[in-house]
């Protein structure tokens, strides 16, 4: 049994648009052998269980059905650690301008 999620919760649904055998003929081999997947967020229409079929109303007002995949999904993209190869650039360029200006 999955976790019970109550009606009105902001969730993400997941589903398959095209199975591996149904992909467009022009896509390369490595894409042919995986499904075309979709994910959409919306408000749960009625109580549902994680991993089970559920229905949402999207911000555009549409009702969509799919597998309940995530509850209040986080935005996890960020900046990551500073990149040493870029950290030095500013100092180098300022030094170059200083040298030019002192000539």
């Amino acid at each position, binding site marked *: 049994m999955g976790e019970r999620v109550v009606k009105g919760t902001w969730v993400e649904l997941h589903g398959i648009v095209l199975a591996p055998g149904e992909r467009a003929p022009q896509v390369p081999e*490595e894409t042919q052998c995986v499904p075309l997947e979709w994910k959409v967020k919306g408000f749960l229409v009625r109580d549902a269980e994680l991993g089970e079929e559920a229905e949402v109303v999207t*911000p555009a007002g549409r009702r969509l*059905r799919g597998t309940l995949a995530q509850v209040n999904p986080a935005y996890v993209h960020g900046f990551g650690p500073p990149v040493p190869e870029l950290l030095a650039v500013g100092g180098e360029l300022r030094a170059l301008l200083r040298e030019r200006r002192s000539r």
Partner: protein
Amino acid sequence: MSEGASYAEVMARRGEIVRKSIGLDYERYAMGTLAFDYERLLADTGYDVETVAAIQAHTAVGNTPLVELGNLTELVRATAAPGKGARLFLKDEAANPSGSFKDRRASISVHEARQRGFQGVVAATSGNYGAAVASQAARAGLGCIVVQEAFDSRGVAQPEIAEKTRACEAYGAEVIRLSVGPELFYVFLRVLEETGWFNASLYTPFSILGIETLGHELAQQMKQRTGAFPDVVVVTHAGGGNLTGTARGLAKAGAVESTVVAASVDLSGLHMASDRDFNRKSFTTGHTGFSIPFTTWPDRADVPRNAARALRYMDRFVTVTQGEVFYATQALAELEGMERGPAGNTSLAAAFALGREMDRDATLVVQETEYTGAGKHPLAQLDLARRMGIRIGRGDPRTSRPGQAIVIPEHPSQLRVEDVDLDHLRRSYLRHALAAVPEGAVLEEPDVSFLAAETRLDPSTVQEVIDEVRRTSR
């Protein structure tokens, strides 16, 4: 997504779905066998530069600052021959409401959708355009759905696209995120069919006419600032809309002598429909994966006739490497105090090399910036690249390999551009055009004139290439 028609069935209805969702009768503009009246298609919409500017002023779009880059100019001169090194200027398009020039494109599409009584707009885009449409739709009180190619089969999202998802959702749009593949278009068609909403395609006349104000403004701003139109305008080039709209706007302002240079990030060797290559690209737009195919055949878009026809307007086409763009992005932040997104800085990287070749009294305008933030940043892109096993180091950017090695220059003198052979692109365009002609059909005078305008070749050269292609393809 609801149960529905199969891929083949929906794709077979594509013409009808697209026609209904744009409300333009493209057939009316057909001429000869393959030609169409491009200027009339645009003019019949009724949007001239003044009308577009008035609509955009109403939604706080446009009138962005033109900034002279004094320190970067000095840096370019430090690596140039005596007497060389143009004055560099930047059109700060990040100042638009959703943070990029794409607001200009979205504004007219959304205006048109509202005028015609559509309840909402749909756009197929993984980039800034989605946020722009969502932002404009929010202001107009229309619904908005954005369809993105967002993650690979392992569920790893491209950080820049993850940020676009967040931005679209922040403006109240429904975002359909898809895994990798051109069948995105199938999903897009189904959404258009299910909703009956307006197709805010990047490639309609509305989208291109919306960008004309960018070229028009920068021409006037340069005239006011320097007393003359710019000598060179560098445009980050992907699908062709940015270049087409900007060049048209420049011409309408009278800046017909300005040289228009297209600049793209070199991603040669990476397949655009490959699940494997998807996250090996550190740029999601402004790269050769879009710009080469769209330059050589614009009518591969989601509309019957693409209003973005870059080959008509480009005087030169150059590429730069990913590492050079990250370097230029860092330089803009640390020397000019402007932290902006990397994709928009593609033309800035090219400007280093182009400016170096020009005289000191000449002027060069980098015609856009885009906003930056989590995901949409060199750090996020390089962090992902490292996790994908791509080597990152410093050195000569010529040693970089898309998908394998990103090389950050060690000195500004290492920034170079590679010229793309325009003659080769023109011939490639003509081959595509001829391939679209039905077997046995005869090309008439309007067709040859059209192809000449498309390629900027004279009609007799066009005829020679046609004869040559037909001979060799038999």
